[in-house]
């Protein structure tokens, strides 16, 4: 079943243009690969509704969501950093995913605790963001996104600030929650090898265009186009 569809999406900014079509099946885990500056973050912002395209359509399960405001879309976007508010504790930051007023009812409290346990940060509830490590901050942000109960999760370089050990942990966690919550994932990265275990689909992106797409293993072992070959250094 078709999940996210991007139809002739077009976006212009001084010195940069984006022009693409793509289909992400529901429940798929897609890697968006490209050098920094290729427009990956811009594409995520377009899908999430922080930017509006000049032309083209964004569809979710056959429904046009192109002109919906960010909060009306069936998705959450995790940023590279600044995902947590510095003045709130981890617990409160996550609570925001359930209730902007921060007042939780009994069952909501349980839900929150369950989620904190699932992503492995329930022992850090009273800490402030500046007291946490990069990985712990990412987990907290992920927990909050999951509580929003949106079927599509966009992640902008989620592995960027993490060390090698933590990256592996994070990938396992993502894999786990994606299956558990039946999510559709779109993850940007510039190091596709690492995310091989996670993804079932890959888009290679350069200068605002999708140049090649396919299963990540095939693409990485036998890159077709010269641009991808150059990017991978083979």
């Amino acid at each position, binding site marked *: 079943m078709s999940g996210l569809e991007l139809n002739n999406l077009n976006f212009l900014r001084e010195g940069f243009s984006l022009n693409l079509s793509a289909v992400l099946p529901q429940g798929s885990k897609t890697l968006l690969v490209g050098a920094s500056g290729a427009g990956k973050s811009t594409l995520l*912002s377009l899908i*999430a*509704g*922080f930017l509006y395209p000049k032309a083209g359509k964004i569809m979710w399960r056959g429904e046009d969501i192109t002109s919906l*405001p*960010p*909060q009306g879309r069936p998705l*959450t*976007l995790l*940023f590279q*950093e*600044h*995902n947590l*508010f*510095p*003045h*709130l504790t981890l617990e409160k930051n996550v609570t*925001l*995913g359930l209730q*902007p*007023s*921060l007042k939780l009812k009994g069952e909501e409290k349980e839900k929150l605790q369950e989620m904190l346990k699932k992503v492995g940060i329930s022992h850090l509830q009273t800490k402030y*963001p*500046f007291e946490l490590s990069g990985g712990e901050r990412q987990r907290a942000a992920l927990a*909050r996104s999951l509580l*929003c109960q949106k079927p599509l999760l966009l992640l902008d370089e989620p592995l960027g600030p993490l060390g090698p050990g933590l990256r592996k942990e994070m990938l396992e966690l993502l894999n786990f929650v994606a299956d558990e919550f039946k999510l559709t994932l779109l993850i940007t990265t510039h190091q596709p090898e690492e995310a091989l275990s996670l993804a079932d689909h890959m888009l290679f992106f350069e200068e605002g265009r999708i140049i090649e797409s396919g299963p990540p293993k095939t693409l990485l072992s036998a890159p077709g186009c010269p641009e991808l070959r150059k990017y991978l250094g083979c």
Partner: protein
Amino acid sequence: MSYSLYVFLFTFKQAFFSVLLTVPLGILMARALVWNQGWKPTRFCLKLLGIPLITPALVGILGFITLAGYFFNVYSFAGILLAHLVFYSPFVALFMINSWRFIPEEHYRLSAQLHFSPWQIFVRMEAPQLRKPMIEIAWITFCLFLNSFTTIMVLGGGPHRTTLSVALYQSLFFFYDPVQGLNFAGLQLFLSFSLAVGTILFKSLPHGSSLKIPALPSLKSNLQKPFVIFSLFLILAPLMVVASFSFFSLPKTLFNPMLWQALSRSLLISGSMGPLCLILTLVLVKYETLFSKSLASLYLLLPPALLGAFLFYISLEWDFFPPEVFLFLMQLFIVLPFSFRLLKEPYQILQVTYLPTSHSLGLSSLQRFFLIEWPLLKKPFATALGLSLALSLGDFQSLAFFAAPDIPGLSSLLYMQMGKYNFEESMGTAFILLLLCYFLFQLPQWILRTNVRT
């Protein structure tokens, strides 16, 4: 009730209520401007926010009286509060917008995803991150209101609305009574210090590990657009009044040779004092100590009359210095609270972010300045220079103590014309003075091309 106690209470009362009105309005204005920064009227408004600060007090008050006078009796307590509101809320907005730049844009996107209402965005996200600058601006405006002199004298109408500044002026310059003067100064210091301690106790939130280059988020909020228009009105309306008064007499004003003499004298003063003030500010920022910090707050802590008197009497004692030295010191004290704050934060960020890199590159301090510090400090530097040029032009009070030269500056000329009932001509001079203030305020930004986006 004794006179001292009465004056003390009134000073506190008017400053307290002025802050209570001015700071929230300034924050609302700042927020509307931040939320619509791509909008044309906003960009125009951002350029004008500094104007009330550099407008000579009496000129602004005249515009205010003319406009507000249609609606109610401005010679009252309410009139004083409203005048303070009009003159200082744009300054509050200017100050707050600079702090707004440090909120990461991601937080706005996050708030949108989390379905925050506009009110929740402010309470949950913006306000907590702006708490420190809010408290600081509340203290700065509180001190400025304690020092309010011209506004209170014109609109106050008698001894029942007297501030410590006025009482101090009386005991230092009219009936020379230094003991009573010290008494008043002590009371005022008590007021300004009590709040200063409060500000220091308020710790700011630790910034995230990565210090972003300050920039305003790209947001849009049609709901807040009326506030932008309101801000523009607040700034422009009093100026339009002055302009309209001077319109018909403008030819007469312009053909007066004295105006041009005054203009060149004013330019000479501000052109020499302004840059000098800024160089000293830079030195103080670079070698920041408790001493430089307190020097930068001196004008806020002490009434200008006391500072002026102090310098004046010192100038008599040390008469081997020409009076210009003391005039300069006075100007420096006036400019410092603003220029020091404008430059301090960017400079600190620069040190934290780039100092290790430039050390590891082995740059000499001169290279460091030209390659790294200067390009990144250019913008706040231009603003501070503009402010210090314009402030060196507009203030009457400090000039009056030291030098009444044969050729008057524009502000002295304005007073002379007023004193001889030349209403239209004095308004013409006021208008030219205003234009010159604005021109000097913008000049460094044009020269240093800080408006060009990089």
